[in-house]
């Protein structure tokens, strides 16, 4: 293990280390802690120019209540859910198919198609922006959740295919051969042999895509407008324009908007990290 395990060091080192971690952590998260502090302060504190002292009264309930009941925030959150969930499902379906095809079969174009998915996945969004916006307008899906979902599913298929294909490659191929010898149809092999084994990879992928899409801002402003369809990331910016100096509401709103991916991360931590670090070890 590197660095040398702290247990092998002197008692002094150990205590010093244990004391240092929380200090470093607080420094690391300082900007976030500030927002948390802001979100429970009363408006009067900001008016009085008193930003950093302890809140003169705890107004957490009031601030968050306002965000939930008197702003467009719940609407934006609902839109985010309507965009994110179908995208995740769509990606899981498409990429388990493509991943299976590229992971199991040997044919000439295999590696080329695989590389097409990878290369497309790295493309800057701006080169897609004008044509995708036009296409979405042409098929009458501009400013609809469906239009945004269709694009997200298509684009994320690149990353997801990479993910699933590499996962399937790592499965023991004998399983598939054994099934073929038994005369089982190929689609049945997919459905009954490979798909059940893909569950952990699908879970990891779902958490990642959920976070990516929830946090997307660019496509939200390119393909949608207004509180009827825009997700929470775009909502925050219009919230920002509306409540510019209302730091207590802005911070409460931001925390609410950030919460779902954070919750997802803490609930599914193992899957999340397994997904993100795919390929980081051989």
């Amino acid at each position: 293990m590197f660095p040398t395990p702290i247990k092998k060091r002197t008692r002094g080192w150990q205590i010093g280390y244990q004391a240092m971690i929380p200090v470093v952590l607080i420094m690391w998260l300082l900007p976030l802690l500030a927002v948390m502090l802001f979100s429970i302060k009363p408006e009067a504190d900001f008016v009085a120019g008193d930003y950093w002292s302890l809140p003169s009264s705890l107004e957490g309930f009031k601030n968050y209540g306002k965000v939930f009941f008197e702003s467009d925030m719940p609407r934006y959150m609902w839109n985010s859910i309507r965009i994110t969930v179908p995208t995740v499902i769509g990606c899981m379906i498409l990429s388990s198919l493509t991943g299976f095809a590229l992971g199991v079969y040997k044919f000439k174009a295999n590696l080329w198609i695989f590389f097409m998915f990878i290369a497309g996945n790295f493309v800057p969004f701006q080169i897609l922006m004008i044509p995708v916006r036009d296409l979405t307008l042409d098929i009458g899906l501009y400013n609809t959740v469906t239009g945004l979902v269709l694009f997200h599913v298509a684009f994320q298929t690149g990353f997801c295919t990479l993910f699933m294909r590499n996962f399937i490659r790592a499965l023991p191929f004998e399983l598939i051969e054994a099934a073929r010898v038994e005369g089982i149809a190929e689609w049945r092999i997919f459905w009954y042999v490979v798909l059940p084994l893909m569950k952990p990879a699908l879970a990891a992928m779902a958490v990642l895509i959920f976070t990516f899409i929830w946090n997307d801002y660019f496509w939200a402003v390119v393909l949608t407008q207004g509180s009827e369809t825009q997700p929470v990331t775009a909502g925050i910016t219009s919230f920002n324009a509306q409540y510019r100096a209302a730091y207590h509401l802005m911070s409460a709103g931001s925390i609410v908007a950030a919460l779902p991916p954070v919750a997802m991360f803490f609930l599914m931590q193992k899957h999340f990290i397994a997904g993100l670090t795919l390929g980081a070890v051989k």
Partner: protein
Amino acid sequence: MPASKYEQPKRSWYKRNEIAVTPILFLLPGVFFFAVYVIYPVFQSFNISLYKWDGLGEAEFIGLKNYQKLLEDRAFETSLWNNLKWLVLYLLAIPMGLFISLFLNQKVTGIRLYKSLFFFPFVISQIVVGLVFSWFYDPTFGIFTKMLGLIGLEIKGGVLGNPTAVTYGIIAAGLWPQTAYCMILYLTGLNSVDPEQVEAARLDGAKGWKMLWYVIIPQLKPATFIAFVVTIVGALRSFDLISIMTRGGPFGQSRVLSYYMFEKALSEYGFRMGYGAAIAVVLFMIMLVFIAYFLWSMYQEEKGAH
């Protein structure tokens, strides 16, 4: 192997060609979507960049005129320089992530929770990160301004209001989640470092920096490669932070190509799709250099695997 024909002479065409046909059927929906929404648009953008087009009326073919205009456009030049700053400085996330991961790679009580909390900035959206940092930098009450004040420094107009400091300020904000991402990659990498090699090196008297440089970092190569890929892609995709923190200001000094393109194409003063597409093409060409390198590395690895 599929059973040969003479066993069952009446097998359907699909049955006989199952192994060849199945992958095509399985690939069809994914490839179709990807081609329509990703591959084809890249070529369309190239085409649009040769036109003058407001997005509504008739497009007028003007050849390479948009690119000629780019050469004289000061705002484009600033954006290009800023992109370069992003590319270089964003890479700092890799060593910073490595050091945090080394700091956290211990087995003490609660370390799992600490690791997740350190990773936290990556999970929240860049919009929220941008908002948080613009308060952090606020010229009247921001903690950063106060801290600078303690050591007697002052940035005129605040970090985000100062034409020289602004890009660095935004990059620093971007480094925060990016470092967290690199950290998690390295933590996973460190987990799989071969303990025998480390012990052997220790017996040979290697420790500290030497051990890190000659024994550990070579073993972390896959993690470094991925950290490099995601950091470069992240640097060239920087849009959200600029959009929420400065909208490209002050005086357009914090623009990058991705933001400038958006601004031109969907400008409030009339869409300039052709010009926007030309900017996007430049950005794409920069990315293409890296994409080619990534694919080449992956190809080498694929070859090695078979």
